[in-house]
């Protein structure tokens, strides 16, 4: 369910960090990564363990929940990618949470869609 990927990205991103604020930034990114796995990792011990771990680390390092997050992959030595051009297709590295149907659990029934219309006089 990808929780291990979040864990390893977090530990990789914090291996060479200095100031506390950078740690908090990485921690928030870790939190965001874990949150994206919430549907698929429901019931996974590693997922719940990570959630508790993040809470503890937030408290220990006095990190606020709001603030910048940095995707671990952009913390590598390569420069960050350029912003998407207008009307670009969805980026291949976009989080699954940014695609409603892809973010649903694999075995889940397809969502029910509903419609509303407003027109005329």
């Amino acid at each position, binding site marked *: 369910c990808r929780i291990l990927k979040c864990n390893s990205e977090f530990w990789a991103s914090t291996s060479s960090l200095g100031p506390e604020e950078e740690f908090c930034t990485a921690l928030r990114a870790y939190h965001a990564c874990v949150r*994206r796995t919430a549907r698929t990792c429901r019931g996974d011990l590693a997922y719940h363990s990570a959630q508790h771990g993040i809470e503890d680390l937030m408290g220990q390092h006095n990190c606020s929940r709001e603030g910048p997050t940095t995707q671990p992959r952009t913390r590598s030595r390569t420069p960050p990618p350029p912003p998407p051009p207008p*009307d670009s297709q969805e980026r291949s590295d*976009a989080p699954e949470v940014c*695609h409603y149907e892809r973010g649903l659990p694999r075995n889940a029934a397809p969502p029910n*869609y509903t419609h509303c219309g407003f*027109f005329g006089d």
Partner: protein
Amino acid sequence: PHLRTFGDDFHTCIVEGAWPLIHNKYLSVQVTNTPVLPGSSATATSKLTIIFKNFQECVDQKTYHAETNELPAAFADGSRNGGERHGGAALRVLEKVPGQHVEIQARYIGTTMVVRQVGRYLTFAVRMPEEVARAAEDGDNHDLYLCLHGCPLSQRIDFRTFRQRAAGGRAPAGRPGSGDQLGSPPHTFTYQSAVAKCKERLLVEDLYFQSCVFDLLTSGDVSFSLAAYYAFEDVKMLHSNKDKYHLFEKAVGLGGAPSRSP
């Protein structure tokens, strides 16, 4: 305006001024409706504002605003997508016909919206997952959100009575000051000529057809027949159940509620 709710109820309403169509954790849609004729309580939509709320790692908060004769192909900040986050392209504005037809895709919430200008007024249609449609904000009783609950009873127009009067040869819309609700049309359609006009594009005599007839009789503005036609085209594109494209009047009730068969 005519409203088809998330629950496939169909209402014809007054709702003059600003009204919310949708308001939940993810987005807010509000319309402003103005009288189609001075002194009339038949109104149509002249402004539309959609706010897509900041969403996790995907999109910044974005506002889309349209007004009569100003149907932009971009958000209010000039951008056409959800910003520079990794999922920014999960929200985008697509121009279908300049100044007339815009589609907004919000893939992160599985939502597609269509905004059109037909004649002098705007139309709105949306497809979204039920889970998203009902994702109320904490502590919000969302009683007035038209797409969810329909128009309040006090705002509904009795479609059936209106039509019976029109078909019976009485003036469908009284002159201002006559005490009638709906005001006076600039061009006079008879019931028969309105029916003939609406049949040009709407082949099934469903509530879209009836609303077309109603609009021609109350406004005299032929572009409202197009509004009903495009509203039905949007249903065909956005509604997930082909069997429910057409709605028909129930035996009783205000504004024409749906039934499962003609």
